[in-house]
């Protein structure tokens, strides 16, 4: 038996098909993964993401330590309430994990992946050094993501006046506490929406309120097709310990300035860049019928070979799309091997859909 979130019994009551995800029993879908996907793109839906790991960083040197630990620079969070996306790198420039960092009134909140919890905490502990910092894992909290074009509007009608006002005011990539809730305008779908961290004992009631108000519960299956369409990486699949953010469409999240900031992995990234980055993460579109899947081989004429890291049927585009790591010289055409046959694919920027609109 895997670990269970506070919403486990509700998932069963809603008819979820449960699967193991990184040691957690999580809902894959509640009937139709494709319908759930459309629901989020066209209206809104609620995801239980309580399996994700929330770590609060406090202490007088919290900022200095995060500036050493992360490839992005928390100096960019000019005021409490701001958030940023960052990789945490090893000495070789490989990605230990990716995360969202929120600046709180007093300290920082990190939301890291569920499957990497143990390695992340071990890595952080091992790199505390002499920094005067306290790490506090908040496993007593639950987390819901409510995503879709109508998400903020619909939730505002179900919460207190002060929370409704906060939800109206939050800009993208901002998050603030209201009482014992933490409400952020972030997500993993390419749509507008919120992520709400709240005490575990309040989560079933709130989830029930949302479902009662007609907001569909959405499983991990649709979460995956939504994030692939949005071109967002999944740790352990598109990114891992042996690839750098430069080869992962994440160069934008590396804060090179100031040059004096010696974050973990910086030396290796500089060497990789000086030598010329060998690979890139691109999007693939299959124009013929079929489904691209992770680990299929990509062949680029006169350039070399690559590999699909995430592949799926795209419900929004009604065709198959993929993320693939290919040689840096890859242009706009490639071929993919599916069951012994080679199919032509288009190579595109790996953002297929954003805010309900097709970008390819």
């Amino acid at each position, binding site marked *: 038996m895997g670990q269970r979130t506070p919403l486990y019994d509700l998932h069963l009551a809603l008819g979820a*098909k449960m699967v193991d995800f990184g040691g957690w029993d999580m809902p894959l*879908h509640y009937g*139709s*993964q494709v319908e759930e996907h459309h629901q989020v793109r066209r209206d809104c839906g609620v995801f239980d993401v309580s399996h994700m790991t929330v770590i609060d960083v406090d202490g007088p040197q919290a900022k200095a330590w995060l500036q050493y630990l992360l490839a992005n620079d928390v100096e960019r969070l000019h005021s409490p309430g701001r958030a940023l996306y960052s990789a945490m790198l090893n000495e070789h420039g490989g990605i230990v994990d990716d995360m969202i960092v929120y600046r709180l009134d007093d300290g920082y909140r990190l939301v890291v992946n569920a499957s990497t919890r143990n390695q992340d905490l071990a890595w952080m502990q091992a790199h505390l050094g002499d920094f005067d910092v306290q790490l506090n894992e908040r496993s007593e909290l639950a987390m819901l993501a409510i995503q879709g074009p109508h998400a903020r509007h619909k939730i505002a009608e179900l919460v207190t006046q002060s929370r409704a006002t906060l939800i109206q005011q939050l800009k993208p990539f901002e998050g603030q506490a209201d009482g014992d809730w933490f409400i952020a305008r972030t997500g993993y779908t390419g749509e507008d929406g919120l992520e709400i961290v709240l005490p575990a004992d309040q989560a079933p009631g709130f989830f029930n309120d949302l479902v009662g108000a007609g907001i569909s519960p959405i499983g991990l299956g649709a979460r995956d*097709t939504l994030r692939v369409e949005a071109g967002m990486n999944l740790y352990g699949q598109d990114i891992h310990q042996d690839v750098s953010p430069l080869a992962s469409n994440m160069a934008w999240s590396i804060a090179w300035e100031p040059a004096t900031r010696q974050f973990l992995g910086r030396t290796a990234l500089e060497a990789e860049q000086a030598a010329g980055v060998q690979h890139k993460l691109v999007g693939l579109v299959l124009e013929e*019928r*079929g*489904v691209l899947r992770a680990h299929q081989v990509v062949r680029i004429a006169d350039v070399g070979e690559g590999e699909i890291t995430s592949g799926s049927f795209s419900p929004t585009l009604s065709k198959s799309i993929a993320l693939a790591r290919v040689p840096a010289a890859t242009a706009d055409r490639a071929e993919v091997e599916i069951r012994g046959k080679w199919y032509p694919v288009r190579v595109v920027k790996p953002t297929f859909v954003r805010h309900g609109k097709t970008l390819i």
Partner: protein
Amino acid sequence: MSEIPVDLRFAESHEWARLDHDGGVKVGISDHAQEALGDVVFVELPEIGKVFAAGEAAGVVESVKAASDIYSPVSGTVIAVNEELANSPELVNSAPYDSWFFKLEPSDTSELDKLLDPMAYKAAIGE
């Protein structure tokens, strides 16, 4: 779980076979199989004229989750394929026992007797 039509016979690999009045055998996948697969988004049908032995891979069904082979439950030659499924693969989910993938001219109709009847299939899938 929906009722299983009584005229079907099942392979343990979850394909159904139906003997038509013209002596042909239509092949599809069970309600249990489509439910386990999730939303079907693509089917790869065999070519007409192909000859399969019982238990041989004859096509592929892909859901959002995964690709699965479809095995021919009996031996025979493909005499027709259901092009409707190529355009509307979701029919496999909504009407699994009407959604045949291909039709065989069976080489030995007694092979049908070796397949599971609906009761035995239900028992095999634990219902």
